[in-house]
């Protein structure tokens, strides 16, 4: 048995390394790492050879004030044209200005071809001057970017309205703007052999547990993939357990949430090209905690948290409870209700499991369709869906009226979770538990819950147990688990992330 496993694993590794070789051949590494010469035309040819016949590569030749031949190379659309014309070309050609370098805010010198190609691709303008072996790399990045807007997936009633956008540096600035701490550290990384995606790993030095930060960085470094189009790529490749349905890294569109998490000793991972920022490690509380909880007064925040927990349990269990009650334990339902339910079900030809599956499937299709539909038609599908799936299905005798209520409540319940990716996990787990309820009733539901609990207790996210602070029990952490204690009681940071600086608030500075 174990020999078989070893052989299987060896084969898997061999396949992996083979795949790795294949795509590294095609990547940035294929750019020959030669140095430039002192001749402008030769250098231009060298660069153009790398890009092949590429029509958006602009080469502008001109003469500097010292009558030397020069050329500027950039990619159309990725640069700010005003900077190039005003501060590079005009600057270099006007005889009055004695200063020799271009007047851009970020300037690098290099003669390595690979670095030049990489910089051109990321929106730099490269200035080559005859007689000079080094090329000037000017930061002229400037393309059309979406402005900072309200996040689509996580809206709050009270709290800041700005959300991340697709540009990495803007996102980093949104975090910096809220956390003016010199200890906020940013580590830059490039992942993706072809996409060359920039990634920032952010953490607060002195709060975050250094080995954990190193672990995050090491895991990102170990990602070898040709493209990173969204932070989900990184999330799925660095998470602890790849076969788990639960998200082990949190994602968010809200800068205030990232800052709050950085201050709890977690690590933020910003990926260029997506408004979704990753937060690691994540624990189970991400399913029902929202930044808004800390902005409202604590009674209300606690109440809302409890409501979210209830609605998540409803989203997971209500259809299966209906199946279990109606097919195995009708004696548990109050007798008048059971008569009414039986009357409603009398025309339904299917067992309750099929009925529930049918309705759940219909509602899932509706939900998916309403996400894909173009904006103006969206509400229409809601009305059509409500009419067809609700009223008509009952009249046609396909489902019972109680089932319609249950499906509606379940669907609404699954929207109450502040985290979309967590809510999807719940939405998916609803189906197996329905089957088990159809087979064993309440006993089956309990079996399933125990399986989930075993799985949850075995999960770890970057060394932090997923169910902490509930298990291992930490009473200090419980103040911010199900309830949200008032701020003056939350003097310490949560311990489960091994924070270095434990206190949030000093005793003497605050009114008791």
């Amino acid at each position, binding site marked *: 048995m*174990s020999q078989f496993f070893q052989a299987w694993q060896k084969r898997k590794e061999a396949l992996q390394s083979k795949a790795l070789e294949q795509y590294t051949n095609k990547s940035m590494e294929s750019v020959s790492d030669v140095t430039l010469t002192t001749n402008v035309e030769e250098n231009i040819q060298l660069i153009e050879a790398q890009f092949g016949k590429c029509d958006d590569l602009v080469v502008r030749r001109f003469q500097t004030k010292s009558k030397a031949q020069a050329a500027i190379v950039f990619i159309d659309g990725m640069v700010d044209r005003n900077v190039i014309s005003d501060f590079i070309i005009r600057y270099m050609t006007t005889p009055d200005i004695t200063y020799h370098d271009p007047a851009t805010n970020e300037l690098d010198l290099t003669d390595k071809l690979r670095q030049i190609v990489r910089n051109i691709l990321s929106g730099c303008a490269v200035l080559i001057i005859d007689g000079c072996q080094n090329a000037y790399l000017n930061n002229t990045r400037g393309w059309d970017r979406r402005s900072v807007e309200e996040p689509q997936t996580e809206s709050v009633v009270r709290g800041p309205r700005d959300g991340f956008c697709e540009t990495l540096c803007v996102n980093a600035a949104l975090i910096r703007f809220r956390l003016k701490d010199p200890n906020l550290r940013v580590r830059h990384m490039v992942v993706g052999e072809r996409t060359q995606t920039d990634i920032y790993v952010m953490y607060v030095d002195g709060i975050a547990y250094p080995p954990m930060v190193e672990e995050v960085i090491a895991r990102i470094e170990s990602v070898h993939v040709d493209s990173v189009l969204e932070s989900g790529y990184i999330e799925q490749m660095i998470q602890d357990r790849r076969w788990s349905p639960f998200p082990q890294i949190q994602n968010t569109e809200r800068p205030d949430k990232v800052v709050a998490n950085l201050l709890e000793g977690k690590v933020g991972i910003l990926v260029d090209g997506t408004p979704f920022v990753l937060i690691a490690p994540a624990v189970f509380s991400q399913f029902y905690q929202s930044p808004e909880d800390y902005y409202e007064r604590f009674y209300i925040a606690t109440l809302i948290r409890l409501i979210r927990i209830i609605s998540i349990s409803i989203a997971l269990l209500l259809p299966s409870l209906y199946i279990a009650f109606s097919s195995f334990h009708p004696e548990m339902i109050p007798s008048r209700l059971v008569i009414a339910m039986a009357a409603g079900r009398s025309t339904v030809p299917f067992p309750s499991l099929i009925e529930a599956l049918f309705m759940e499937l219909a509602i899932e299709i509706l939900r998916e369709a309403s996400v894909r539909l173009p904006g103006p038609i969206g509400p229409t599908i809601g009305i059509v869906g409500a009419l067809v799936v609700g009223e008509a299905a009952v009249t046609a005798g396909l489902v019972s009226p109680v089932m319609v209520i249950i499906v509606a409540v379940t669907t609404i319940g699954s929207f109450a979770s502040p985290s979309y990716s967590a809510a999807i996990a719940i939405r998916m787990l609803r189906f197996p538990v329905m089957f088990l309820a159809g087979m064993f009733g309440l006993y089956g539901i*309990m079996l399933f819950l125990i399986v989930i609990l075993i799985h949850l207790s075995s999960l770890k996210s970057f060394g932090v147990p997923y*169910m902490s602070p509930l298990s291992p029990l930490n009473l200090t952490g419980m103040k911010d688990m199900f309830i949200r204690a008032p701020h003056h009681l939350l003097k310490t940071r949560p311990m489960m992330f091994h924070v270095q600086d434990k206190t949030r608030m000093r005793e003497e500075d605050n009114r008791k």
Partner: protein
Amino acid sequence: MENQQRNFGTWQLTSIMISSMIGVSILTIPRTSTVLLHQMGWISPILGCLLASLAVAAIVYLGKQFPGTTFVEFMPRIFGTVLGAICVFLFILYQFFNAGITARLFGEVVVTSVLPNTPLEAVIITLLLLVVFLCCHEIEVVARVNELLIPFLLLPSLLIPLVSLMNADWYNLLPFQIESWTNVMKTGLNTYTLYTGYELLMVYFAFAIPGARLGVASMTGMSFALIVYVITVVAGIAVFGYEELQRLVWPTLELIKVTQKTGWFLERFESAFLAIWVASVFTTIGNMLYATIFSLRRLFRKGLRFQQITAIVTMVPLFFLTLVPKNIVELFSFTQQFTTVGLLITIFIPILLAITQFIRNQFNNVREVNNEKGGT
């Protein structure tokens, strides 16, 4: 031995202890404790507790003497290789059978009261599959699962007897006198089995965080179990009277059935109770079988893969063993005989181990003192 750090906190040990002890036996305890003692039946859990506490004290002592080692390592160290190996073997076998009996008992309860059309085999198989799933994980998962499932055990086990006291007839508890002390002793020896499960601490204490208070953990666990058992028996006697109790197979389940007033939105509660009780029975069986399979793994010094395969392999004979008793009467008599064997394994062996170790320590101290004297 990767990933086996000592990280069980005091509360985790407490919850392991409580959930290993409270299992199926709570469903029959009002009957078994009143067979001989009649209206004074509530004494028997106290007597059982006293008896079990001796063994628990011995186990705590051993846990402190041998931190970081399970019974697999310390039994041969105290008793010598041969006798120790026999003890280890007996212990593993006992856990194995005990888990089987618990699974069968619970299967009977579920099949007779909640799922009458479901075959007994299906219930037992699903329960054992759940245990296999648990055995596929590292030992720290066991502690966390117990910790997470403890509310499912605490709430119903305390609430149900208390709520059912609404129907109580307190005269059933009178007269307040003991008729025969021999019967008291007999029942005490029988009802200590309510507390079996504490012996698993010989495995789980090995993973206590250095500095975890083993004594506090086991004291809390014992006293909690004692309270639950006593109030369950009191409620059983007060509601039914001891004569009627003899005719009820699952008296605690009947207690829930007669408690009608609790139905605010659910009319009857026994299905819900049994569904919740799955968690507590699962932790009992899971802890036992995990301890069995884990000690086999320690014995052979293998890794997690060995444990997973062993779990799957041992579940097959266990499943057929659970089906050996033909009916519930045979099952009860089998359980009765098993109690006597259990007395030897769970009470006498730990106490003997502790005494031997204590004497050994005394001798070693004397020898050390002598050595010091000789040295100077």
